[in-house]
């Protein structure tokens, strides 16, 4: 019997390859997406492993936000090996030839670094020459934006430098990071030390190379506690490798999940085409049953065919996936710290093919189970069909359960995190169930309340939606899911971009000057006023750290493993003092103290998130280290802050009369209406006060949009798999129903219906399907968009009706177009040909 199953499956499949092509095509792209992303992920891991040392550029690094104190210097000295220092800080770079200025990250380097890998520049020799005198290497994109050339001069602080070359590739930094803050490399010895004065943000690093093969991780473990005490962070090759590996694994896993969505959508196509395939095989199965085939052996025949087709689809998908894989590094180039070389990952190919094959078999099994129910009596009476009542079959429900569990487990394994995997599974199930429910509801409503007063064409077209063997469910799923994906992406983009408009719109400031020393405030504000620009904000900022919380010092907490230390304990705060709340703040607890009498702890207002991180409430004591001086405070109020507004917002606000004598820097804000105005005032202030930095929000916006467009491109690239699969499933559903409606068209033709009438009936059907699919998809996308904006972006949903409406209308138009294209020739079939053919 077993041999017969294989033999018959092979023979029977010969004549069905064409129809089975639909089956294969709907899951090919999903497999391709999975294979390409996972294979790329393996390549990426290999690249990171191979270039682990170049990621750090050394064996070990120390990092601190203040110059290393004597004890740390002693440790550095004792470690020996090759050492190279680097100091990084943000500052304005002024380019005299073009009279432009831009906030950059300056890196002052000593010779030697990187010990592994290299800094790549154009021209290549510039990586050596810039360290000889007062040379500089400047980020290539920045040079292009500001029309800066090699040989031009550049001023940072009071020092001028000659640009020796453009930076092409640097250790630890991807192109995306560079976009946020362009890099300028200068010799460490040539840094204008006045820029590193008290209050400025700088990072001091020392890089080690141990040629004696010492274990950097062991050194870190040994020295860790004392270095942490001195607020020195450490980094080793394995830590750096781990950080990149985790971040990039999350990225490609997320993309893999998008690919998996395409596979899921394709699997619906599989189920649909197998369903129709089974219906076309009822007579064959009945005859086989008459001649003695058992019910499971007939299921086995078609399961083997499904396996064969699934395998073929998996192989095709893998081939396409490997082809696509070579493009992914190009798509993701800006986010990668290493060059990824192409190689086929057989593990990924096996996984993608295996999942594709598994999904195909599971989804094919659902309709195939009905084969068991085909009675041999159907061979005698063709109208006798017992295959349809699968919903009462416990095995069918068991298979549905296995499908859901299988999908969920894979999604959770593939997702960047457990929560993400669960959320994805629930969301996908919810969307699919809702779409299926809508399709069923529409069929039920149309059956109960058909448009009886409408014309024959409309009545017939609508009736096609609920007649036996209709494709309504499949079409609504494919159309609805496609619309849902595209519209959700669109809504997310609109919401994000809307946030930027909200942040900078109206009369809000869009140009910020910071690191303004108290004695420079008057100069800066008068320069702004002279340029006929408004001074919208002028706020003092004082740097401080938390020393103790409710009587326990942070050091004590660090030593006690039972207490948890968060970022709120460790970070450096910039706080201000003022007499009132501003419009981005809402008081949620206590009362805001606007002034301080001078005795007792200072009443401070704390931001709500920090309050919960520090586990403090009204009346609790906090002691701050304000640049060496302990300042005792008491929480008097808790505020919620809208961080998305372009405003000087703070975690801690002190009352007037408390911090006026502390060393402060000021932030001055204004609003410019044009690029020229912005460049003019920045240039004026940077030239007269080189220590002051400025941030033009429109430039940040530009950078954000550039990054966002790259992210959106990647998302669209992966989303494309799902949309294309949706179109294939849609075409498949239309083609499948074509086989069924040829007979009906011929009958209508015989009874006197014109070509126009037949085509109009079909158009009405596709119009209704398109409208139902696109409306349901759009409504679901609005729900998803709202959830994403609420929980991910923490913003209100921005809906621009025109593009969303355009997507919905396009889906309807596309449905009618595909329906009409795939139905062409239906009317041209001769009655005799149709009646004779085995449909």
């Amino acid at each position: 019997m077993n041999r017969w199953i294989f033999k018959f499956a092979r023979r029977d499949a010969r004549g069905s390859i064409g129809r089975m092509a639909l089956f294969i095509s709907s899951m090919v792209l999903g497999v391709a997406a999975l294979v390409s992303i996972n294979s790329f992920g393996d390549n990426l891991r290999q690249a990171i492993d191979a270039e682990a040392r170049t990621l750090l550029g050394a064996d070990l690094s120390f990092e601190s936000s203040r110059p290393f104190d004597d004890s740390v210097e002693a440790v550095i000295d004792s470690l020996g090996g090759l050492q190279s220092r680097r100091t990084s800080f943000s500052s304005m770079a002024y380019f005299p030839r073009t009279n432009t200025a831009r906030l950059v990250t300056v890196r002052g380097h000593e010779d030697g670094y990187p010990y592994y890998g290299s800094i790549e520049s154009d021209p290549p020799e510039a990586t050596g020459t810039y360290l000889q005198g007062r040379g500089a290497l400047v980020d290539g994109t920045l040079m292009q934006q500001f029309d800066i050339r090699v040989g031009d001069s550049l001023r940072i602080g009071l020092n001028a430098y000659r640009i020796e070359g453009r930076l092409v590739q640097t250790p630890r930094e991807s192109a995306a990071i560079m976009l946020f803050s362009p890099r300028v490399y200068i010799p460490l010895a040539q840094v204008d030390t006045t820029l590193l004065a008290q209050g400025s943000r700088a990072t001091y690093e020392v890089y080690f190379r141990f040629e004696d093969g010492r274990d950097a991780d062991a050194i870190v473990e040994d020295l860790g506690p004392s270095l942490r005490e001195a607020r020195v962070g450490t980094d080793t090759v394995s830590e750096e490798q781990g950080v990149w590996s985790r971040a990039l694994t999350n990225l490609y896993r997320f993309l893999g999940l998008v690919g998996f969505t395409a596979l899921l959508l394709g699997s619906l196509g599989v189920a649909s085409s197998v369903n129709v395939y089974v219906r076309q095989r009822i007579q064959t199965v009945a005859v086989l049953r008459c001649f003695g085939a058992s019910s499971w052996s007939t299921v086995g025949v078609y399961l083997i065919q499904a396996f064969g087709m699934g395998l073929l689809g998996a192989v095709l998908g893998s081939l396409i996936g490997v082809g696509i894989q070579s493009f992914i590094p190009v798509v993701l180039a800006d986010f990668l710290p290493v060059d990824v070389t192409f190689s086929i990952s057989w593990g990924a190919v096996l996984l993608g093919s295996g999942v594709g094959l598994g999904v195909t078999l599971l989804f094919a099994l659902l309709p195939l189970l009905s084969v068991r129910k085909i009675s041999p009596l159907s061979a005698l009476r063709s109208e006798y069909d017992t295959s349809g009542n699968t919903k009462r079959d416990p095995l069918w429900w068991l298979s549905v359960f296995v499908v859901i569990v299988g999908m969920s487990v894979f999604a959770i394994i593939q997702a960047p995190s457990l929560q993400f995997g669960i959320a994805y599974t629930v969301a996908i199930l919810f969307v699919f169930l809702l779409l299926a429910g809508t399709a069923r509801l529409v069929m039920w409503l149309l059956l109960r309340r058909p448009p009886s007063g409408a014309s024959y064409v409309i009545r017939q077209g609508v009736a096609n939606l609920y007649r036996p063997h209709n494709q309504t469910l499949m079409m609504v799923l494919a159309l609805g899911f496609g619309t849902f994906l595209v519209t959700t992406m669109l809504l997310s983009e609109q919401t994000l971009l809307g946030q930027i408009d909200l942040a900078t719109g109206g009369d809000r400031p869009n140009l910020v000057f910071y690191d303004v020393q108290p004695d420079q405030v008057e100069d800066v504000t008068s320069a702004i006023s002279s340029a006929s620009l408004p001074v919208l904000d002028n706020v003092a900022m004082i740097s401080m750290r938390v020393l103790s919380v409710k009587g326990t010092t942070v050091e004590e907490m660090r030593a006690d493993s039972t207490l948890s230390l968060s970022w709120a304990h460790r970070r450096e705060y910039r706080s201000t003092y003022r007499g009132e709340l501003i419009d981005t703040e809402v008081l949620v607890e206590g009362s805001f103290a606007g002034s301080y009498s001078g005795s007792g702890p200072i009443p401070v207002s704390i931001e709500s998130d920090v309050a919960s991180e520090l586990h403090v409430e009204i009346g609790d004591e906090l002691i701050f280290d304000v640049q060496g001086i302990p300042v005792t405070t008491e929480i008097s109020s808790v505020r919620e802050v809208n961080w998305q507004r372009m405003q000087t917002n703070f975690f801690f606000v002190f009352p007037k009369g408390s911090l006026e004598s502390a060393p402060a820097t000021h932030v001055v804000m204004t609003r410019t209406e044009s690029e020229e105005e912005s460049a003019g005032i920045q240039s004026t202030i940077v030239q007269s006060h080189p220590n002051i930095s400025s941030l033009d929000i429109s430039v940040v916006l530009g950078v954000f949009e550039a990054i966002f467009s790259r992210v959106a491109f990647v998302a669209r690239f992966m989303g494309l798999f799902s949309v294309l699969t949706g179109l294939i499933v849609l075409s498949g559903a239309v083609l499948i129903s074509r086989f069924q409606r040829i007979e009906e068209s011929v009958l209508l033709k015989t009874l006197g219906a014109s070509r126009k009438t037949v085509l109009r009936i079909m158009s009405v059907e596709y119009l209704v399907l398109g409208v139902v699919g696109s409306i349901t998809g759009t409504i679901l996308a609005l729900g998803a968009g709202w959830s994403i904006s609420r929980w991910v972006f923490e913003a209100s949903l921005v809906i621009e009706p025109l593009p969303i409406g355009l997507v919905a209308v396009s889906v309807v138009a596309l449905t009618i177009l595909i329906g009409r294209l795939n139905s062409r020739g239906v009317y041209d079939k001769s009655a005799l040909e149709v009646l004779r053919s085995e449909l």
Partner: protein
Amino acid sequence: MEKVLTVTNLSKTYQSGSKSLTVLDQVSFTLKRGDTCAIVGPSGSGKTTLLGLCAGLDTPSTGSVTLCGNVLAELSEDERARVRNEHVGFVFQSFRLIPTLTALENIMVPAELRGKTDARPLAEKLLLDVGLEERSDHFPAQLSGGEQQRVALARAFINRPDVLFADEPTGNLDTETGDHVIDVLFQLNKTAETTLVLVTHDRDLSLRTNRIIRLKGGRIVEDSAAENNGLSASSVQPVGAANE
């Protein structure tokens, strides 16, 4: 002679909403090896239902069918399939050849299902017997109706069945082709000593069998075997009236 098919008080009732419809009512008869029997009667009289029940394609509401010693009601669906494979052959009105298999492969199906290793030579021999040796690689769509039915006959006989059930075997054929197919059917039947059960509207065909059972409204209204035995002569009409 050995009893091959015993039908006892066979009834079949379908439930349609709150109504029940009896399509077969207390039917009994017995057939021995080599018997040829025609079941005749008007449309809706229960002929095909009776055939389906006799072959174990369906289960009766009451009564029993014993096929080659197997009480069908006691068997599961798959066990009945095994009994059909071992003892039964079928010929259908619309041939029911599997469209994706060639003529030869169609004939081989029952033998292969039985696990026979010599299915191919057996099928080739039968193809020769039905005069279609030149058409072995043709698919059903490439054969005429008569040729398709001859392939179906070869398929029905490949396992040398004890009983052959034929449902209107000439119903889809013109007279000349039908006659040729019936000649082949009776020739094969004679060679294989098969019991033949025919459902037909064709008077001439029914006259070629040695027993005729006439159904009306689900009941046997005439059984030529009974007439010959003198059991119910008063109710028996002339056999030739079957199609009148």
